[in-house]
């Protein structure tokens, strides 16, 4: 049966943990109620951050034996979300609460050509798709980009499995990806699936639009955890609620407001639905829009933001020294 988006929670046991690249650990889970995971699925799981249970999403890299083994991979990313530190501390035998596989990024069978594009840890969402396309003998190219080879998980395994169909682009080996060249290879019957940093995905989207390709053939998954700038601590003021809240690096503005007792509206918590939108009445600094709900035009206006993923930084160059004033960015908002 097709995977759903209805969360069915179960427990899972950690069977194995293994470093697979610099800062990336492969975690094999044994779920208590196994179902096999379609390509493109992820699981939600509860991590512990400072004693509090918080939900995080991880792509299913691999599912074997009818789903009795689920593999995820976690990158240690101290600057964004605190959950990765917890995940890296897991040892075999540990128990977790996880959902059955959830589907937000379905692979359509039957396209004439596929380009799969993985940037960095985004490979976790793409690897299973590539394996299925290989099994189906589909016409596909797997493009894997990274900063340096030893930070790229599974690069050897993928090369063994996909041979010539794998194309790697590695910045410090001088083989960086030329996005217009890649998109130039797509035609009307090509579907491109991608997961990676927002800059990469945005460049692909711009090329895609320039080439007047059908937007629905450009498929991507975002967990809202990648931005244009490194996350900084900033201040959010809500005069209506008489609040001033500090948003630390490792926490979202939505979470920080909730922590402070504000009753916030939200749904997806990953920048897709637009329900967590707040109106900006004053800003010292720049908004790092990390959502996919707003158009570029709307983002430039900087009058609203989706607070589940978007943040504030001190200056448009990302450098503190360019800021108009020292200290953190400050946003004043009216919640919806």
């Amino acid at each position: 049966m097709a995977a759903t988006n209805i969360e069915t929670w179960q427990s899972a046991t950690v069977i194995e943990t293994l470093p697979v690249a610099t800062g990336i650990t492969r975690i094999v889970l044994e779920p208590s109620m196994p179902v096999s995971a379609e390509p493109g699925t992820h699981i939600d799981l509860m991590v512990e951050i400072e004693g509090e249970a918080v939900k995080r999403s991880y792509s299913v890299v691999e599912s074997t034996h009818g789903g009795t083994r689920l593999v995820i991979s976690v990158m240690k990313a101290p600057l964004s979300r605190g959950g990765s530190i917890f995940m890296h501390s897991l040892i075999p035998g540990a128990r977790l609460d996880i959902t059955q596989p959830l589907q937000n990024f379905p692979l359509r069978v039957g396209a004439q050509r596929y380009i799969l594009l993985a940037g960095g840890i985004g490979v976790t969402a793409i690897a299973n798709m590539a394996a299925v396309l290989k099994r189906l003998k589909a016409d596909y190219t797997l493009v894997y980009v990274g900063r340096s080879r030893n930070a790229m998980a599974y690069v050897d395994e993928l090369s063994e499995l996909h041979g010539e169909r794998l194309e790697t682009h590695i910045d410090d080996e001088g083989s960086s990806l030329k996005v217009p060249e890649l998109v130039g290879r797509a035609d009307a019957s090509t579907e491109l699936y991608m997961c990676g940093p927002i800059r990469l995905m945005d460049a692909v989207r711009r090329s895609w639009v320039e080439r007047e390709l059908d937007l629905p053939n450009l498929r991507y998954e975002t967990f809202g955890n990648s931005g244009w700038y490194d996350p900084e601590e900033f201040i959010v003021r809500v005069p209506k609620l008489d609040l001033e809240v500090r948003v630390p690096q490792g926490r979202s503005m939505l979470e920080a407001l909730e922590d402070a007792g504000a009753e916030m509206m939200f749904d997806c918590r990953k920048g897709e639905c637009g329900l967590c939108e707040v109106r900006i009445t004053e800003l010292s600094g720049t908004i790092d829009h990390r959502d996919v709900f707003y158009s570029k035009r709307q983002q430039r206006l900087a009058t609203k933001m989706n607070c589940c993923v978007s943040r504030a930084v001190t200056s448009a160059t990302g450098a503190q020294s360019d800021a108009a004033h020292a200290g953190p960015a400050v946003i004043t908002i009216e919640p919806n």
Partner: protein
Amino acid sequence: MTVVAPTSSTTNKVLPHPLNAWYVAAWDHEVTRKPMSRRIANRPVALYRTEDGRAVALADACWHRLAPLSMGKTMEKDTIQCPYHGIVYNSAGRCVSMPAQETINPSATVPSFPIVERYRYVWIWMGDPTLADPELVPDMHQMTSDEWAGDGQTIHAACNFQLVLDNLMDLTHEEFVHSSSIGQEELSESDFVTVREGNKVTVTRWMHNIDAPPFWRKNMQDKFPGFEGKVDRWQIINYEAPSTISIDVGVAKAGTGAPEGDRSQGVNGFVMNTLTPETDRSSHYFWAFMRNYALDSQLITTQLRDGVHGVFGEDEEMLKAQQAAIDANPDYEFYNLNIDSGGMWVRRIIESMLAAEGRLVASA
């Protein structure tokens, strides 16, 4: 539905349907630019054709608030618009327009099901799409062959699909259910042979030197005006998993060599049947009667279609009553007769398909 593995001595009264299989969603002419809704394997499906005539099957529930897409309208190229807030999807089930915002939520999709058009039918695959191989569409070539002519209809059968398969795999019921048209006592008296090969089962029955029942007397006279006398009659039931049965039926002038392969002195038809589970308690039963004589007579096509419609109406009544009795008597078992061998092989094959999908529970 609790279903036990075939190693058990109890016979499952009704069965769930395998999902990794092609089922007929509709006759080709039913699917048009105006969307239609049909429940298939328990799921509502919206069916329509694209501007260039391709059949499309999407889950009949909009991603947003689950409004039925079948109530919407088809738009340019391969798209369909939800009737409620106007979200537009393409044939892959992907949102191409969200009227109330400047961007498209990347998660906005509805499931789209693989489709094959073949043998005058639109076939659909409800299970794992990575397994949907068009080569697996059951053989119903008589439906579109130059050597056969005929037509058919759809019955909405108020029973589990397996009960219809049982009905078609054992035709001794004709003597009792269809006594005025094709039934005769020789059916129960004559021997039959059941052969199972892979996902196919064949049940062959010959009745030698008998009187032709009314339906067959008329067909003989259509081909051989004024025909009277004894006939040799055959019924060769060909099942292909999960739910297609084509029955090679006919009569020939007795003793002219039909059992040995010379059917020139007879008339031959194929009763084409294919079942699509609608729910666990109802089925779409697509049938046609194809013949290999008087190919250009629309009169005979219509007469045969109406005649078979009458015969199958008798089955429909019986099946509905049987399903009601099954549900009203949950404590009673099914017992089996020797004549059930064909149907029992069908059950065995379906149960093994279910087991492969992990949907059959072992008996306690």
